[in-house]
């Protein structure tokens, strides 16, 4: 106990007993003990001067933190749609058989813990699982068997990573099975650029000029909302306060998205350089990369890159000789929560709290991290900056469409020949897209993930990928005509149910109502009124929610209904008396009672017998 106390105290001291660093403190404790013991909270209570209740408030929010002893090896199997399309069921069964325990529990001898998790950013190489956060891709039941057997036999986890997906394992800091799968590069990320060029160019101009250049480029945020980047920066620059922050949103939680993973593996220099450019433009000295825990395997690699950049004076004091401009970056890990990708929830999380989105305004550009003006940008947005600043805003504006200039990285998965990442110019048609990725009999495409739109592929061939038509956030999941589309829409609704932070009642409760009504439809028990009910609830949730999760959670149903009305209509029950609810079955609902009587009232004592 004394030893544990000392350990916990020294972890807290490592972070200067700063309660806002709670996420890091929890990670360190969990790395040490395999979970976060209650006793540790008692120690933290004193060191950080916060109550156990407050500590648990944060702890219980994140699904990668364990409050009770977990397995020696914790296996997180991706249960998301991309995995389901590639045989998730068989892998699920194989893990249960081989580990001899059920998902959601730890096996008897404590060797394995089996858990499920939503999208882990590997949709192009599913089925995939994280074992102690090390990714294992393209799983088959046989591979599962081999992996579990090897671990049981005492083999090191790292030793099981045999094929290298990135750089042939030559880089000591990243030996991973994860492949980059870049299928096509465009005019931006396809250009060879030397590290520091864009930043050097920026430093020759004033910060205002840099912001102007980004405005000229017409760059819009690549994280989903598509807000003008230059505009966001100018607000932050104008905001009062001497300390400002640049935060890179690398939470990449939208199911089906993995392009930020590729940017961080293949273009880390450009990303960090982009953060420095943003720092110069708004007047910040500190950048933070908020990285989802699913990408912990990149930690050493990215830390190594940061070190290299410091050595090159692209980070550090008087960056590239510009006196007075100091800028450095640290990495902050999340711990498994989709909603933490929402910018204000992300800030809360960085401050060591639950990922509950804030009420806006004020926006983060005015009141952000630790109350200071903060610019939050997506990975892809930031990584494009060195190219823009080197070649000029008008060069960038020359690509794409009038209203959506530039290029976009798409994460493509599902039923196609060539899953992976593609850089396209905005304005590409769905027809061109499907041909490019080898989707011959595409039926539906989930564009921009569950919060986006489920389109009817054949009816949308001439639609264009750009903000003015079909907004493409990054995730493209393709379904062929043999797929039970509503099954996946149901999964997406469950995703929102599970990931809602719960602060707004309509989002917390309404998503469940919509999901349950969809179940009723799929079971053939729903009538037109139930369908109308979904839309009515969807409207309430969208109108009254605090953040984008609630604003878009109805989209899987609304968009699939709009584009595939017959899928729904053919399931509606027109026969049952509309005054009754067809899902209620009186005979079935008294079966439990009859069984209880039979099992508990012994023969002879049963009055009825």
């Amino acid at each position, binding site marked *: 106990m004394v030893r544990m106390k000392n350990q916990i105290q020294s972890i807290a001291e490592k972070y200067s007993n700063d309660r806002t660093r709670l996420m890091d403190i929890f990670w360190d404790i969990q790395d040490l003990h395999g979970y976060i013991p209650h006793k540790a909270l008692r120690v933290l209570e004193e060191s950080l001067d916060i109550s156990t209740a407050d500590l648990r408030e944060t702890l219980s929010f994140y699904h990668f933190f364990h409050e009770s002893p977990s397995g020696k090896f914790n296996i997180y199997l991706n249960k998301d749609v991309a995995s389901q399309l590639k045989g998730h069921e068989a892998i699920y069964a194989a893990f249960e058989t081989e580990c001899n325990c059920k998902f959601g529990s730890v096996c008897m001898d404590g060797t394995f813990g089996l858990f499920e998790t939503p999208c882990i950013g590997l949709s192009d190489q599913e089925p995939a699982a994280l074992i102690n956060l090390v990714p294992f891709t393209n799983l088959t039941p046989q591979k599962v068997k081999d992996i579990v057997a090897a671990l049981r036999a005492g083999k090191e986890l790292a030793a099981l990573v045999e094929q290298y997906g990135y750089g042939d394992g030559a880089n000591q800091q990243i030996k991973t099975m994860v492949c980059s799968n870049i299928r096509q590069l465009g005019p931006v990320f396809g250009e060879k650029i030397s590290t520091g060029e864009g930043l050097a160019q920026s430093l020759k101009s004033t910060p205002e000029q840099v912001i102007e250049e980004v405005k000229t480029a017409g760059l819009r945020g690549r994280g989903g909302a598509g807000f003008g980047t230059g505009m966001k920066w100018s607000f932050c620059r104008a905001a009062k306060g001497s300390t400002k922050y640049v935060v890179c949103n690398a939470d990449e939680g939208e199911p089906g998205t993995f392009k930020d993973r590729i940017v961080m593996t293949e273009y880390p220099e450009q990303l960090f350089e982009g953060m420095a450019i943003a720092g110069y433009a708004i007047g910040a000295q500190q950048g933070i990369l908020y990285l989802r825990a699913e990408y912990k395997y990149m930690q050493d690699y990215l830390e190594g890159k940061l070190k290299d950049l410091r050595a090159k004076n692209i980070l550090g004091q008087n960056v590239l000789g510009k006196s007075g401009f100091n800028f450095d970056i640290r990495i902050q890990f999340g711990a498994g929560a989709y909603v933490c990708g929402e910018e204000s929830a992300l800030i809360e999380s960085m401050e060591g709290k639950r990922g509950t989105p804030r009420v806006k305004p004020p926006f983060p550009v005015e009141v952000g991290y630790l109350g200071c003006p903060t610019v939050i940008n997506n990975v892809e947005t930031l990584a494009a900056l060195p190219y823009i600043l080197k070649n000029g805003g008008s060069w960038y504006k020359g690509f794409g469409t009038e209203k959506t200039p530039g290029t976009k990285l798409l994460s493509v998965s599902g039923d196609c020949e060539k899953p992976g990442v593609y850089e396209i110019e905005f304005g590409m048609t769905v027809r061109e897209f499907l041909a490019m990725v080898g989707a011959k009999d595409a039926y539906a495409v989930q564009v921009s993930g569950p919060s986006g739109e489920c389109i009817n592929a054949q009816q949308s061939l001439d639609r264009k990928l750009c903000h003015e038509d079909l907004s493409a956030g990054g995730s493209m999941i393709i379904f062929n005509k043999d797929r039970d589309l509503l099954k996946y829409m149901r999964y997406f609704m469950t995703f929102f149910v599970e990931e809602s932070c719960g602060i707004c009642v309509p989002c917390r409760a309404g998503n469940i109502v919509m999901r349950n009504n969809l179940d009723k439809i799929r079971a053939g028990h729903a009538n037109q*009124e139930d369908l109308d009910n979904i839309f009515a609830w969807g409207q309430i949730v969208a109108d009254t929610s605090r953040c984008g999760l609630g604003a878009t959670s109805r989209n899987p149903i609304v968009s699939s209904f709009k584009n595939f009305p017959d899928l729904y209509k053919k399931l509606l029950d027109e026969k049952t008396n*509309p*005054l*009754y*609810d067809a*899902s*209620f079955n*009186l005979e*079935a*609902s*008294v*079966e*439990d*009672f*009859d*069984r*209880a*009587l039979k*099992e*508990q*009232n012994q023969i002879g*004592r*049963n*009055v*009825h017998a």
Partner: protein
Amino acid sequence: MAEQTASNKPVVATISLAGCFGCHMSLLDIDDRIVQFIDLFELNKSPVNDIKKFTKRAHVGLVEGGCCNDENVKVLRYFRENCDVLVSVGACAGNGGLPALRNKMPLQECLVEAYLDAPTAELGKAIIPYDEELPKLLDRVYPCHEVVKIDYYMPGCPPSAEVFWDTLTSVIKGQGFDLPVELIKYD
């Protein structure tokens, strides 16, 4: 529509299923307006006047409580068939309410706890009561709208007398059920 009554008064019916009668008490809490009530409405099947079977179709049916047994289901369906507009009244009818606390446990465990393992049960002799006359419990407590179509909801545990009064009088004025937010806002 229900046939016009001789007095031309709207016909109201009420019922308590798996509820505590608190909602009915709240209805009676309209105090002396009960006299006006009799002037304005005709009360058909209801525990208040003990009419057991509908003698005519009702315009409005008020249902207190959800369904915890097969008899509740039968009565609720009977109500649905005999009322033009059916209103789910209170937390129990709307969500299952307090009785639905058992929904987290398997029915058998509840029965064993209540009848066999109860401190007052005679060891070895206790049984789970059963008789053809007794209703059978459902696997869980259902809110009314999971059993029949419900037209309107009156939230509250119980809804206040004002809510009852305003709801019923708006019907007469032909205003539908638009209640002021202050009356049905509980947080």
